[in-house]
């Protein structure tokens, strides 16, 4: 073997050694990567198992909360029902006492407590009531309800416009409760400077109606609008207007009971607008 051949042989050996080293390096890298992937897979599996356990826990808690909620509703119905009678009795006894500021204040407090109880009983009854579907003249219903509100607020200058011909097949008692509370809310909170400008109007909706009650009052802030339909949140933010904070919760519950929904929009040009979507009841 001459010198050139030895050199070529050495070069080939060197190349082979390099190739072997590279292959070893690649293999080591591959093993490391596989080990990392394996670890990642185990971590993911652990996370996945944990998530599944969390989901099962949440579902169990949801069921427990649903049951607890039903119990609480029954309890509140029972308490409200049992409290009403002694409070009515207390009011009657109060009338036997000599009239005075203190008596009037106690009577006001009793009336508010009875209003709250009535609201709670209404909320509870809505769930269990069976429907009686008829064609309800909503325009006429609103006219009658507005008249009642006018009598309750004789000092308010109320300019009310009601769209004619609003009619829908639905349950009249639930619809009546719904609009009574919507209009009562408007008369309590929708006025400015002793003047109420109210519009009852409709918008087309698929297989039903959207009815709106718009006022030119102060309207609701986004925060109040978000919570307006929750029980014990007053649409007026708690200031003025009276009310026990159940009216819009009743509206929401009644709308859902009828298969619809209730929500709030700002009125274009200022003021507020409460809307309900009521589907036509199927025969």
């Amino acid at each position, binding site marked *: 073997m001459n010198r050139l051949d030895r050199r070529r042989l050495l070069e080939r050996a060197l190349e082979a050694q390099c190739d072997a080293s590279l292959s070893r390096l690649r293999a080591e890298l591959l093993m490391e990567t596989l080990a990392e992937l394996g670890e990642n897979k185990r971590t993911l599996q652990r996370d996945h198992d944990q998530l599944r356990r969390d989901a099962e826990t949440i579902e169990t808690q949801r069921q427990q909360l649903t049951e607890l909620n039903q119990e609480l509703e029954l309890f509140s119905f029972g308490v409200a029902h049992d409290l009403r009678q002694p409070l009515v009795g207390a009011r009657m006894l109060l009338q036997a006492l000599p009239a005075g500021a203190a008596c009037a204040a106690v009577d006001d407090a009793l009336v508010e407590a009875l209003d709250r109880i009535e609201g709670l009983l209404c909320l509870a009854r809505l769930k269990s009531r069976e429907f009686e579907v008829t064609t309800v003249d909503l325009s006429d219903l609103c006219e009658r309800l507005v008249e009642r509100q006018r009598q309750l607020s004789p000092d308010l200058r109320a300019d009310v416009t009601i769209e004619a011909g609003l009619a829908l097949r639905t349950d009249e008692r639930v619809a009546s409760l719904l609009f009574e509370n919507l209009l009562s809310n408007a008369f309590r909170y929708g006025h400015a400077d002793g003047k109420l400008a109210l519009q009852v109007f409709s*918008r*087309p*909706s*698929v*297989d039903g109606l*959207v009815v709106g009650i718009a006022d030119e009052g102060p309207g609701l802030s*986004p925060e109040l*609008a978000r919570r307006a339909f929750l029980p014990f949140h007053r649409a007026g933010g708690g200031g003025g207007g009276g009310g026990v904070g159940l009216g819009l919760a009743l509206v929401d519950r009644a709308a859902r009971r009828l*298969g619809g*929904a209730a*929500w*709030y*929009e*700002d009125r*274009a040009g200022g003021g507020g607008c409460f*809307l309900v*979507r009521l589907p036509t009841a199927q025969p």
Partner: protein
Amino acid sequence: MDYSEAIAIADDVHWVGRYDPGRGLQCNAYLLHTQAGAVLIDPGSMGDFPVVFRKVLDLITPEDLRYVVVAHQDPDVVGSLPVIAEVAPEAEVVAHRETARLLEHIGLRIPIRAVPPEGGFLPLADRTLEFVATPFLHSPGAMATWDTATRSLFTGDLFGAVGAPWSLFAEGAFESQLTEWHEVYMASQQALVYSLDRLMQLDPERVCPQHGSVLVGDQVARANAHLRTLRCGIDRLVSA
């Protein structure tokens, strides 16, 4: 009309779609500006994204985008959703429940609000969006979006059209392009009539489809009358 820019089609409503003269199927996206944030309707494909989002950003900042409403889950409608989810993390996707079920497979980083089959509402401070299911037109979970403030009905593939020439607002005899699209993509005449009956109760002032042209005024009634007569989808299957 300069289609390279966003175009106002109603009060606080812009067309932000992409017009590509090289293709027969144009994609319309719409942006609604409300006091509760902006709403993007049918954002379009990945290929449409640069054009659509440039127009969106000419009108709002990404943080202003609160809702992305999608009529169904096809790539020409939702292809750009993963990127939108990255650049507009405050946004929430709104889709029919059957569409939301499929969108979950994309793995979006933003929440998906599922609209039940009986429909739903999205109050937005100064207006409300109503969602109406349009089953099998053409997807089982297809839905239309009704803007109460402008009486605009966003219909996704329904009222869509294909072919050239194209204009943002329908012109002349537009019915043949409606036919070409609906005969192929809509499930059946029965499905069409069912949803048209319900949607026409809304008496829309304009119809804004994801493909084709915006229909205004009596064009809506013309399109409705035309579509009701079409045999499409499975109606056209003929056994050997």
